[in-house]
């Protein structure tokens, strides 16, 4: 059917765009925690969208049921890994870069009209 095919194309397109955005964010952002945020959020959106696009293309078979299970596992496990990684980094002593923030606050305070 035309509308399912269009919907599948749309999901694949949006999923691809978000995956690319996440990868660019992973490469360009300055800090570990910001990169973690970029990778995790885009992945949690892009992965189900791509798989839904494939499910709409396959139709209603055993394969689509297994693909739905893959979506469920990914939606559960990706944020868990993000949480565990963030907690491990924070406990391991990897501090976010507070120097720039303090510098910016000092600059703002200096520029305030007296």
């Amino acid at each position, binding site marked *: 059917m035309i509308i399912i095919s269009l919907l599948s194309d749309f999901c694949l397109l949006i999923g691809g765009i978000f995956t690319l955005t996440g990868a660019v964010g992973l490469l360009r952002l300055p800090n570990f925690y910001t990169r973690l945020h970029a990778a995790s959020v885009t992945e949690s959106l892009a992965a189900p969208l791509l798989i839904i696009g494939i499910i709409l293309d396959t139709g209603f078979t055993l394969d689509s049921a297994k693909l739905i299970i893959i979506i469920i596992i990914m939606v559960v496990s990706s944020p*868990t890994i993000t949480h565990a990684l963030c907690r491990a980094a924070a406990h391991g002593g990897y501090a976010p870069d507070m120097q720039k923030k303090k510098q910016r606050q000092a600059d703002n305070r200096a520029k305030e009209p007296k």
Partner: protein
Amino acid sequence: MIENLHLLINVFLLAFLVLIVFAAINTNNLFVATMLFGIFSFVTALLFLDLDAVDVAFTEAAVGAGFTTVLMLSALRLTGAFENVKHRQSVLGLFIVVLTGAALIYGTADFPRMGDPNSAVHLNLAPEFIQLTQEKIDIPNVVTAVLASFRGYDTFGETVVVFSAGVAVLLLLGMGQVEPKKEPEQNVVLRIVVKPIIALILIFGLYVQFHGDFGAGGGFQAGVIFASAFILYSLVFGESYTRKVIPAAILPRLAALGVLIYGVTGLASLLFDKPFLDYNALSSNPVSGQHTGILLVEAGVGLAVFATVLLIFYSFSGVNHNE
């Protein structure tokens, strides 16, 4: 367009392989090297999938990316985590490696092209196996038929090899005891999330075990997946609870039981006046006899592999190994 996609995927994946290996060799930190070899296994399994070798891709993913990573990380516990860097470059070593590589490439220049239907592999044995599988065994997955029935001796040997690897680790290390007061931190999110996932992995392991006749799967992959569930449990809840769930003493016996099931299935055909490991004798109808035989030997393989994998994991993560 599909040809172009094939070419594109192959080029990218092979380039990834080369880059990953260079990065893994150049780094000093062995944790990083282990992780990079894990994704090396991922990419290799993708290439196997592209070549239509599904069972091999399955096993590569389960063993190479899952179990080997965990095992090497446990081994890094016993050794240091940084590599001693030798600063002396060896010209002789480079020359020998280049020479060997050139000889190998020269030797493969005579091979037929990949997928050539007129090559010796595809003319002599492959059509016979495909036809015989349909006539005599009647299961869709030819790989399982070849592995478990036509070349059953070989698979028996492989199972014994896996068992003896477990025995070797037992002789060298022993399973030791649990590290005292080394409980992982109480991470509520992980503990809650991991419980349903462990149940899912166990069910998936059973599915792979019994589904080996129809799709990708079989005893080896199922055993590793089943053991991965317990390894995951041990990572999150701690080694002491895992040893309460599956005591260390039961594992060598389970491994031996797996090999025994395989051997007894073979011996059972001797009782009916047929050769060793001829499954036709196991039932009135030869085809259902083959089905029964394949079911039993795959169960034996799965049990042996599961017990050996878990045994090796216990050995690497225990302390106070008493000789």
